[in-house]
């Protein structure tokens, strides 16, 4: 049951290299917060500052209302699962899990009980006396998690814990972590990943980090359905959201945009008279595009098709300065290659961005 409050946190290396700015974030007790962002966005640095492995340049970090900026890692009541697992190679699984408790001078009974409990949750009982090198990747990962469970911390920190596993194991372990979270509804967890599937499936709320700051904070579906800006719109979802430039031609509860490619888009987005004639970008996810014979948002020649089985990806020819539009149709449509296709989307699926920000957020 721990809350975290990050206020105006900033990180600068060596007085010159600024990596994070203006980080303000409230984490409620029992939440699983996921930090995502492109590599180099500072998500790991932010996690390490929360852990106390990096000094906070300015701003304050509070855990349960207490400023912990100058508290050493071990006193913050946190536990961390590292990307490389960081198991102590010369210690058995049991010793790995009990190391922190021994350092804290806990009684032997207490240590044994905690280790056995964690081992049971993670099905590690048969391996307690093995060295890490005799374990598979997934087992090592579980030991790393077990090591943090044993400490019964206020906050769990996960630093890309699945990135060293192969695809199949990653899915299995992801589900295990989700179950683990469910079994400990009161513990607060912070999870760093660059994998948006992990983010979407695990998070209570996602923090998207970009350009040294927070781009958006929200539940996974909020981020998907109501991205606050073009960066989040394109970062969440795969393939990325299509952006088409155009001009607002009709305002009101719904907004109509005439696109530079000739089509028009109607969006369930409110606008004011002042917006009339403004240059905007219209965003439509590939999976929301549907083929049409009537009014279209976009039409173009299909350059390449990728039939993935359950869906077919259509790559259209580039028009103007916009990126090539991508469509995602259910089923197999290999025959569309080389054809001219008109695409449209339902108004509730269409986003409008002015100066990079969504009109839904103002």
């Amino acid at each position, binding site marked *: 049951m721990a809350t975290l409050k990050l206020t105006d946190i900033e990180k600068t290396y060596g007085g010159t290299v600024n990596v994070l700015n203006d980080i303000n974030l409230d984490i409620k007790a029992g939440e699983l917060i996921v930090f995502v962002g492109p590599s180099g966005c500072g998500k790991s640095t932010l996690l390490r500052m929360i852990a106390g492995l990096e000094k906070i340049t300015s701003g304050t970090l509070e855990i349960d209302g207490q400023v912990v900026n*100058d*508290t*050493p890692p071990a*006193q913050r009541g946190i536990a961390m699962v590292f990307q490389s697992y960081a198991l102590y190679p010369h210690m058995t699984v049991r010793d790995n899990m009990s190391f922190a408790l021994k350092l804290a001078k806990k009684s032997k009974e207490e240590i044994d009980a905690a280790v056995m409990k964690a081992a049971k949750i993670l099905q590690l009982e048969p391996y307690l006396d093995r060295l890490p090198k005799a374990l598979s990747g997934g087992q090592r990962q579980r030991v790393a998690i077990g090591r943090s469970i044993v400490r019964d911390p206020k906050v769990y920190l996960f630093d890309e814990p699945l990135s060293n596993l192969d695809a199949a194991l990653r899915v299995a372990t992801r589900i295990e972590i989700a179950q683990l979270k469910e079994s400990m509804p009161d513990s607060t967890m912070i999870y760093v990943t660059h994998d948006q599937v992990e983010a979407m499936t695990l998070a209570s709320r996602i923090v998207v980090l970009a350009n040294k700051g927070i781009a958006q904070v929200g539940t996974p579906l909020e981020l998907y359905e109501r991205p606050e800006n073009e960066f989040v719109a394109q970062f969440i979802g795969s393939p990325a959201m299509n952006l088409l430039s155009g001009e607002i031609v009709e305002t009101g509860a719904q907004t109509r945009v005439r696109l530079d490619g000739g089509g028009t888009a109607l969006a369930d987005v409110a606008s004011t008279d002042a917006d009339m004639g403004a240059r905007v970008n219209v965003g439509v996810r590939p999976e929301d595009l549907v083929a049409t014979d009537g009014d279209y948002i976009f039409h173009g020649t299909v350059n390449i098709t990728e039939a993935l089985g359950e869906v077919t990806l259509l790559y259209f020819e580039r028009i103007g300065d916009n990126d090539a539009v991508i469509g995602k149709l259910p089923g197999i449509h290999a025959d569309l290659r080389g054809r001219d296709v008109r695409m449209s989307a339902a108004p509730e699926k269409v986003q409008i961005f002015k100066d990079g920000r969504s009109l839904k957020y103002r």
Partner: protein
Amino acid sequence: MNPVFQGLITIAIGVGGIFLYFIASNAFLDKVLFPAKGPNASRNINRANTIRPWLFLAPTIIALSLYLVYPVVGSFIRSLYNRSGNDFIGFANYTSMFASSEFRTAFLNNVLWALVVPSVSTFLGLLIAQLTDKLRWGNIAKSLIFMPMAISFVGASLIWKFVYAIDPELGIINAIRVNMFGAQPLDVLQVAFWNNIFLMVILIWVQTGFAMVILSAALRGIPEETIEAAIIDGANPFQIFFKIQIPQVTNTIIVVFTTTTILVLKVFDIVYAMTGGNFNTQILPSYMMQFMFRDDGRATAVAIVIMLIVTPVMVQNIRQARAEMR
């Protein structure tokens, strides 16, 4: 007291003392000076952590400053005093040394040593590393050539004293001269100029293994693909060796070369045991030992000369280390 017993006590005191020092000093820091309790706990922990590295470093720093830093200054000052150490005589030790023909011989010989020993042992080391790389018994061969590393320079000198012995029933060289060429036996250690080379052979014999081990690892570190690409491009083994492999290990070759050069300037044992510096085989380290205990002023002057020769390497090493740390 029996020295063995004394030695055991020293180990106990030394090891125990060091641990005791670390435990006690850390405890003092954490419990007394900056206790991790009370209202200032966080601040105290951080303060303790800024002091702790110096606790860890203290024994080493003290040892180094006393035994390696202070002597640079101490030797220089001593070299400005006369034999007894009572009278300041400025650079007189240096001027008289530079004027002495034995010093010049030692200096020139040392230059020769510093050129020949590193080049030959690096070359042989590279050659052997390359030749043994693909041999099935390559590791055994390397191990045998590496073996002299474990032998003291005194032991190595003795081993080669046998090879160089005048008696054709003892020294292989003279046995070959007498039995195969019918020549008279000869004391090779008295042959002008070449005797220096014969002494260098001993150090080369010891040091080639070192060069070989390092260069062998470096050669193995070369990406196999570059060699395979060269094979497909039609290079023959010699071209591969000289045009693909050697250029990729140039840095290592330089490291091996300079390391051996530095060593050459430290080794007095071989000359001391083989010729005692006679027959114009003196080098600076053995020249210095001639004055040790007799004329400390002169001995330290020689040491300072050696230091000056080493300085460029030292500066270069420091520079490189600082560059790597950035």
